């Protein structure tokens, strides 16, 4: 995975809806405020390697410059952050400057963490210092060529792109909205994936003041969805409950998390309180549509064609021979377990990356509080050619009333080269 999708792993990927239940309420209280905040920030997804010790770092992340490794943030004095004072910890988290003065790559989403309150930084410090067991594990050296390894340009990068200072409540909005804004812009660092980036890999916007904020972006072969009010490709069709259910269970009325969002659901959002989830929902639902779109009207002509067995589109045969086995000839799936494709925001998105990626590589298992999903998207990169996949994806994007640009074999071929297949293996990252 590249620096962006993994390090700032928070692609909120959705699949569209039909009908379904509310996830039940969160009962288990967080062990401590600091741990709760660490969950909200999803620190573990990057600072723990699968099979490794909690927060001992060592996770490899590809970047355009070369591979880097997440660091040991356990309280081990020699190899971790045991020697950090609260002030030094604060400087790393909110300003991206390590104890020894070297600047962190923005793989660490400090531009977002900059918005944390002093109290929350202190609580996080307590958690990492007092509750996380120290692990003696030296950090791995980054594999970025010396020439490019100069960190001083980051100082300028920071000057240009960072807005310093904790989040301040916005007047005219209620407490819940402000709490939601704080979580989404700060610890949640949702924009790291869902906000388009500029030429310097900077997020084009860090809050709702810009219509680019959370308007969706491509990262590492996935399209992180538009989280604004757009009716076809965004959250326009979602209720607040849908948002809460999704973050809590990885599903809602039919959408299912996949791609990088699987890491987020597996390690972060289900651990948040209902109050915070509702706050996040209130804030996200307040973001106006970035474009004018018309809702998709379901059209069952495609279903009838598939059943009559006489569809001319090249992708139809792959669909009926394979996809229809779970998603149905009617494109409605079996929600909430198996997502619908008809009227599905990711299907309708102009950028087909996520759809192609899912078909090529499948999806890693969603694991909500230790329980893996009952159903999982398998991979098809071995069974189907680039042309087959281009055809079937194009078919899906234009069936049942869907309308989205056709996909070429070349687009599929490119993603086949740059992405890896998923595994059915369940990976649990422990926090302690």
């Amino acid at each position, binding site marked *: 995975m590249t620096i962006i999708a993994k390090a700032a792993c928070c692609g909120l990927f959705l699949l569209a809806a039909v009908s379904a239940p509310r996830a039940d309420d969160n009962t288990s209280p967080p062990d401590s405020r600091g741990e709760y905040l660490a969950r909200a920030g999803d620190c573990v997804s990057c600072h723990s390697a699968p099979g490794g010790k909690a927060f001992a770092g060592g996770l490899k992340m590809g970047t355009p410059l070369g591979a880097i490794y997440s660091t040991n943030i356990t309280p081990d004095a020699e190899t971790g952050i045991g020697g950090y004072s609260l002030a030094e910890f604060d400087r790393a988290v909110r300003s991206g400057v390590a104890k020894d003065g070297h600047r962190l790559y923005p793989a660490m989403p400090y531009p977002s963490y900059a918005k944390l309150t002093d109290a929350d930084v202190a609580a996080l410090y307590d958690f990492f210092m007092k509750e996380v067991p120290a692990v003696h594990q030296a950090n791995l050296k980054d594999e970025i060529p010396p020439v490019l390894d100069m960190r001083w340009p980051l100082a300028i990068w920071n000057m240009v792109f960072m807005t310093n200072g904790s989040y301040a409540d916005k007047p005219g909005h209620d407490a819940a909205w402000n709490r939601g804004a704080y979580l989404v812009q700060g610890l949640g660092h949702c924009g790291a994936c869902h906000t388009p980036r500029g030429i310097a890999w900077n997020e084009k916007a860090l809050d709702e003041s810009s219509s680019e904020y959370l308007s969706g972006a491509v990262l590492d072969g996935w399209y992180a969805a538009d989280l604004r009010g757009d009716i076809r490709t965004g959250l326009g069709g979602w209720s607040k409950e849908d948002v809460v259910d999704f973050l809590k269970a990885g599903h809602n009325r039919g959408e299912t998390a996949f791609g990088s969002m699987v890491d987020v659901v597996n390690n972060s959002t289900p651990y948040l309180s209902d109050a915070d989830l509702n706050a996040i929902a209130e804030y996200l639902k307040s973001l106006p549509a970035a474009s004018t779109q018309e809702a998709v009207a379901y059209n069952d002509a495609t279903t009838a064609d598939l*059943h009559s067995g006489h569809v001319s589109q090249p992708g139809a045969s792959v669909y*009926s*021979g*394979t996809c229809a*086995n*779970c998603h149905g000839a009617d494109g409605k799936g*079996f929600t909430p*377990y198996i997502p619908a494709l008809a009227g599905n925001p990711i299907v309708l998105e102009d950028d087909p990356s996520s759809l192609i990626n899912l078909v090529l590589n499948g999806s890693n298992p969603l694991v909500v509080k230790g329980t893996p999903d009952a159903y*999982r998207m398998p991979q098809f990169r071995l069974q189907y050619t680039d042309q087959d996949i281009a055809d079937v994806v194009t078919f899906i994007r234009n069936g049942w009333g869907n309308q989205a640009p056709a996909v070429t074999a070349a687009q599929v071929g490119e993603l086949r080269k740059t992405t890896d297949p998923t595994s059915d293996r369940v990976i649990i990252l422990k926090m302690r």
Partner: protein
Amino acid sequence: MITIEVNGTSKQIDIEPDTPLLWVLRDIVGLTGTKFGCGIAQCGACTVHIDGKPMRSCSVPIGALDGKKITTIEGLSPDNSHPVQRAWIAEDVPQCGYCQSGQIMATVAFLKEFPAPTDAEIDANITNICRCGTYERLRRAIHRAADLIKA
């Protein structure tokens, strides 16, 4: 409580809604003709008809099936007389036989949509795996079944 009709008999099913139809059929209803091969809709051994349409029952949650009509291999005919079964017997298709319930159920539904199928249409729509490799006879049996149905 979910109500489904299996081979014409109504069944009340009280179980977690994410349970796949396959396990309801095999372990609750006790119909073992529908087989488990992969559990991820790849092999087709679990193919049944839901309201007449072929589905892979390992990947269909029972919670989504209230009021649906299910047909399994046991419900195809009382005496092996369905044209597809007759074609299978005439061509001596099965080897180990484990995949064949699914192959037959897939073919029955397929021939409703393609009464006179070409080989290309067969290739595209009969995607069930047969590890024993009975494909040579399977293809012949599908054509033979199409003829039997026409006759």
